[in-house]
């Protein structure tokens, strides 16, 4: 295709310093979750009443409103769906095009939004087994990215 994304041109012309990934503002629901990801651990919540596991973190269980406890997840999951983003004018993402955005189903049950890193976009498929890798985005927060299980890469 000859009509290259306009964003590619814009990114090339952009001489500002790289913009970091956005960072969340932790609150009472989420501080432990974000801190754990900062420290390289993936937490999910499990209901002490019905046993349902959930993400994102909430005050109580979204299924039965029971109390929840933190459980460290295995970090393993499979790709439920994915897309390759080829147009995004927002920094810092426009500098990373093309990149893979995916929904991953964790072994523990919950589904989460993420990026698949450590492989070429064309190697991503639905059902691909993946494992978590982490990136700090502030002093108190990190985010989970996922990479194919068996891949050597441990960071993006």
């Amino acid at each position, binding site marked *: 295709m000859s009509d290259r994304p306009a964003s590619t041109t814009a990114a090339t012309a952009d001489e500002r310093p790289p913009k970091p990934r956005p960072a969340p503002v932790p609150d009472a629901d989420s501080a432990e979750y974000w801190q754990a990801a900062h420290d390289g651990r993936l937490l999910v919540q499990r209901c002490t009443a019905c046993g349902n596991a959930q993400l994102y973190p909430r005050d109580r269980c979204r299924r039965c409103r029971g109390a929840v406890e933190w459980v460290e997840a295995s970090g393993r999951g499979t790709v439920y*769906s994915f*897309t390759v983003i*080829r*147009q*995004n*004018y927002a920094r810092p993402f426009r500098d990373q095009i093309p990149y893979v955005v995916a929904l991953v189903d964790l072994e523990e049950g919950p589904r989460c939004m993420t990026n698949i890193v450590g492989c070429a976009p064309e190697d991503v498929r639905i059902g691909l087994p993946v494992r978590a890798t982490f990136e700090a985005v502030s002093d108190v927060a990190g985010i989970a990215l996922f990479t194919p299980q068996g891949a050597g890469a441990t960071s993006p």
Partner: protein
Amino acid sequence: MTARRRQAVVVGVATSDYPHLPGMSEYGVHGQAADRALADAGLTFADVDGLATAGFFPMYATMVAEYLGLHPLYLDETNTGGSSFEVLLEHAAYAVESGAAEVVLITYGSIQLSQMGRRLGTGGGGGGGFAPGPSVYDSLWGNTLVGNYALAARRHMHQYGTTAEQLAAVAVTMRRHAGTNPQAQERDPITVEDVVTSRLVADPLHKLDCCVISDGGGACVVTTAERAADLRSAPVYVLGAAHATTHHLNMSAMPDLTVTPAAQSGPAAFARAGITPAEVDTAQLYDSFTITVVLTVEDLGFCEKGEGGAFVADDGLAVGGRLPTNTDGGGLSACHPGMRGMFLIVEAVRQLRGQCGATQVPDARIAVAHGTGGMLSTGATVVLGREAP
């Protein structure tokens, strides 16, 4: 003698000028559409005692009321994204049927194209921007509005074998309908090949799988059948309506990416109208993306789950096809100013009045308008009829 039940009807519809309105204010678009819809109904602002509209800040309806010089007794600004105007019409029907209002004016106005330019893919749900609250759990990874719908499209392809060519067929039919609409933003015919070879925005969605970005608006006037008796045009009856939601902007919170809220709102609306999908003569379906339409025809029950690709292919949505859809050219080609739901109502009413010219569905008696909002987050179905229930 028992009192006859009050029956909601639509007595006036209009679109504003579109798709390019340089220099016009957002509120001026509301005003132009309102003037035209009231004139279509043979009513004036003095007859209006209810106002419903949706926009992107709190107290929006109050702002529009102030601008239009209205002091309504009934006010509604429920915002469910693109499906807002179907919800507002449902609410307005309840209002006039309960006696809370006599004449409800529903208006929409947007200058999205003039304001934002053609920056597809940077909108809500990602792109590094922050929507409020828990939206952060999806927005940190750089997904885009198109990307969210692409996730649904990819999953549907995986589960049901839906092809890019089948999705493309939706865009091709909408463009053909747009070719008969002098106001449509894009009117030149396209082929399936054109769609699948257009630039990928977020795999598997190409540029031509995405709606246009426009300026524009519309309005409709809702009252009772009794009040409509001495008005100029034949009333269109609100036979039944319902709405539903599965999540806000987080696709990770959507239980099944191949099942939209239409699976709830559709059956509920059809039951309230006392009809089946087979009785529908024409559908005006939210077409933010080609995949939106494929999911919607399945969820509303026009075909089985998973068969939407085959249903829309081979002119299935064209006039004369399985389900004549978006006869004005839809959001994919005619006009998409951000929340297109009002246009669906206007076109459905025009079909039932026989005013659609080259894309008129012969003897259309029952029409469905179905809006989809957010990231497949909300669905609202309205069943309209030419004859009293």
